[in-house]
Each structure stands twice: as structure tokens, then as C-alpha cells.
């Protein structure tokens, strides 16, 4: 039932996704306690993601709590055409974690005169349906290892490091355009490895 409870080789059937949607529908309909089911399923993934991004267990706890409460409040706004519930939840965690470390970074660099900026209400992340259904961790790790080091680094600094493309360019001494194309090619390669299709890497160079 729970994809987190043990490694399953290759793709996992989407039955879990359907079950999650049902739970989220119940949450949206007022069975607020059912958010616990989603927390039990994805709390460990959420905490892993928040911890990786923030590098701070206490802040990660805040982020996860905040994200699940946000998901509970916004359960009615989940659109099933835009990714699984799991992806939706983890996107909220990602979004909040990035927000938290950027805010902390900003306050570290520039002491706040009057308590700093007011945190924004939770905005829902943009997301797209996963290209390959559920995949187990080993498959994903293996896929990431097929990328070049610089592509993987660009993805990780952006996704886990909370750095903008410009910040990555500045820190790594790489031209901004190179950072952009490493990210883009990295994502396209990942897609190709995971689903065996998608545009070739040399296709779609931007018109700039």
C-alpha cells in the first residue's frame, strides 16, 4: 500500500495515487483528520526533503508542519490533472523550504530593521504531471547518475540548494547562460532516461 514502506523495483502502480486522491477529497470535504493518512504516507519524504533543503532539523519541522497545514487548508484547490497528491504535497514542502532558507539568508545578510518582511500566505506551487508514474528511489538515483556532473550539480543547487540560476552562476563562476542550459539539458536527460522518450538534447535550443 505504502510505497515508502519498502523498495519496490521499477514503477509502482498508480493505485496509491488514486487512494491519495480519495483521501484528499475527504479532507477537502471536511474530514480534517484524514490529513493524518497523508502525513503517515509522506511525512518521512517531506521531512527528508525539508531537511535536505534547510540543513536544519528545527526549521525542517516548521516547514513540514506549515506545509501539511497548508495542504489541509488548500485541499479543495488540488487539481488532479496536475500531478499526484504526493507530488503536490512535496511541491508545497519544497516551496516552503526554499522560501524559508531564502528568507533566512536574506536576514543573515541584511539585518531586519523592523522584524523583516511579512511572510506571504502559502501559495500553491506550479507543477506538472510526473512523466513516468511512481518510481522507486534506486531508479531515480541511477537516473541521476547518468547525468554529467555539472548538470547534476546545477539541478541540485537549484532544487535542493534554493539558489537562483544567477546565484549559481555567481558562486560557481559559470556564465548564466551555461547554468541555464545545464539545468535544461539535465532535466531533458533525466526525462529521457526515465521514460525513454522526449526531445533529443540538441533539440530546442532557445532562440536567444
Amino acid at each position: 500500500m505504502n510505497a515508502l514502506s519498502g523498495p519496490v523495483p521499477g514503477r509502482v502502480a498508480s493505485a496509491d495515487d488514486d487512494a491519495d486522491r480519495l483521501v484528499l477529497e475527504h479532507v477537502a470535504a471536511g474530514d480534517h483528520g484524514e490529513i493524518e493518512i497523508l502525513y503517515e504516507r509522506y511525512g518521512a519524504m517531506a521531512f527528508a526533503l525539508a531537511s535536505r533543503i534547510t540543513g536544519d532539523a528545527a526549521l525542517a519541522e516548521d516547514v513540514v508542519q506549515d506545509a501539511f497545514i497548508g495542504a489541509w487548508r488548500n485541499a479543495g484547490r488540488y487539481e488532479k490533472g496536475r500531478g499526484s497528491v504526493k507530488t503536490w504535497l512535496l511541491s508545497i514542502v519544497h516551496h516552503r523550504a526554499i522560501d524559508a532558507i531564502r528568507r533566512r539568508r536574506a536576514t543573515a545578510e541584511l539585518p531586519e530593521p523592523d522584524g523583516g518582511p511579512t511572510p506571504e500566505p502559502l501559495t500553491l506551487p506550479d507543477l506538472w504531471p510526473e512523466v513516468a508514474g511512481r518510481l522507486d528511489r534506486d531508479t531515480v538515483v541511477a537516473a541521476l547518475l547518468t547525468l554529467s556532473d555539472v548538470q547534476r550539480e546545477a539541478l541540485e543547487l537549484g532544487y535542493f540548494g534554493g539558489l537562483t540560476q544567477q546565484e549559481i552562476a555567481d558562486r560557481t563562476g559559470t556564465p548564466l547562460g551555461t547554468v541555464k542550459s545545464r539545468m535544461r539539458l539535465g532535466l531533458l536527460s533525466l526525462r529521457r532516461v526515465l521514460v525513454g522518450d522526449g526531445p533529443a538534447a540538441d533539440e530546442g535550443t532557445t532562440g536567444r
Partner: protein
Amino acid sequence: MTDRPTAMPLSCDEVRDLAAGFVLGALDRAGMAAVREHLAGCPEAHQEFAELGGVVPYLADSLEPVPPPTALGARMLAAVAAEASARTPRSVSPAGTGRGQAVGPTPAAGPASAGTPPPIRSVPATAPPVVSLDTERTRRRSPLLWVASIAAVLLIVGLAAWNVSLRHDLDGAQAYGAAVDRVLALAGTAGGQAAILAPAQPGGPTGIAAVGADGTVRIAMRGLAPTIGTEVYEAWVIGADKAPVAIGSFVPDAGGFGTMAAESAPTGPGVTIALTLEPTAGRTTPTPPVLSSGVAAGAT
């Protein structure tokens, strides 16, 4: 170019150029907003976003799951329950037509529900989710719900604390959250009482206190101004004889959070808990003004 400071509209080519950064969340706030704005109004499909964005979720799958501390789930669920119960009365009474629904199954002829039985569970299109009335009535009789409703009041205070915690003084907020948990635990014991300590002046310190049947008192406060020199915050219990009794003093941390525990305090039903700022510890009469105070109430 990525970190453009203005909200200048982007061309389709510029948006394509930013797509990978956007789906990874690796643009600054203005960049994210500009792309989002373009996508919302652009007749083009911008298929590259689905192409690139569809693999982003797998990046999180590359991590080994890490079980969160067990208290986290309980805290999250308590906050959800508290917020749900806090908003229920509002949500169940749409525009003044359904007051009866909140307290019992009295038919209410709202515009949409005329001729139909009152819904047990309403699902407003835009309003927040509400809980089942039956569930809610059951909960109202249980001591746990009482603790939850204290937590609901506290949530108004507590949400602000989270926001603080996300940008400033994480340790203090964390300790405050843990102290609140301990206060709520004490309030939930047999014969326990709780008091919301409201500020006398807007912007003053706020918090919660619990009084146990055995005279144990726990207090968690936030929004405390820093003390100077020998100054301390002193907590007082004011019983039926109206004489304030000092029960303990403390100083806040750098984030303005302060917690205190006392034993053998002179307690009784409906005592008042008050907080003052004193020039030194050990005073036997409070120095005005009272900064925050609240009356303890039990579960029954």
C-alpha cells in the same frame, strides 16, 4: 537577466529561456512571478514546461526518507484540529441563514437549501473545510476538545509564532512551541485549568498558562520586550482574596520568548494569572502596569 528586478512582461522566448529555472524553483521571486504571469495569459501552450517540469518531482524521490520526530505529527494534527474547530461556527452559518445548523438539526431555509434537510456536512466552494457537526458535538463534550479549543485560541497567537520562527530566532520559537505543548498537557490533566494571557496593551506579550490541581503552574509567553539589568518578568496568581502572590520570575530569550514553571502555587477555580515587569526578582507586590493577564478555566 534571470533576476530581473522589475515586473516587465516577458516575451515567449524569454519565458522559454527561463523554463528550467522556473520548474526547479531556481528563479528569484520576481522571475517566478513574471513567468507565472506570462503563462497565465499566453495563448501558446509552452509545452516545454510540462516536458521539463514533469521530471522535477523525481528529484525528491532520490532522497532517503527520514522519519520526522514523533511530536511533529501530533503538533500538526493538533493545529489542524484547533483551526478546524475554531472556524467551524463561522463556516456552518452561511450569511446568517443557517444559525440553527450550528447548534442542532433545525431546518434552515437558506437560498440553496430550501426544501432539503440541513446538511450534516457542508462543503462550501470557497470557504475552508468544516467538520461534521456530529463529530463536533461529540468533541465539544470531551476534555480533549477543550484542550483543542484552547489550542485554537492559541493558534491565533501561535501562527504568528511560526512566522517568526521561519525567519528569526528558530531556537526560541522551537522552545516556545515545546513549552506550549507542556502547558497544554498540564491543562489537560484532571482538575487542570488553562488561561490565555492576553496583552493589556496592543502588541504586548501574549501566551498561555496552565494551573494543575496540585498547584503546578506552567507559563509560555511570547512578544516579551528584552529586560534591562536586573529586571525580570514576574508571574502572579490572584485568587479569591484578590491578593497577588508572586509565583516565579524569568527573563525572555533574544526572540522575546519566555517560559516558566512553578510548584505549590496557591490555586483555585478561576484564579487570575498576571504578568508584570519588575525591577528585581523577589518582589512581593506587583509593579504596575500588568502586562498580560487571563483567568484560568477548567474543562468542566
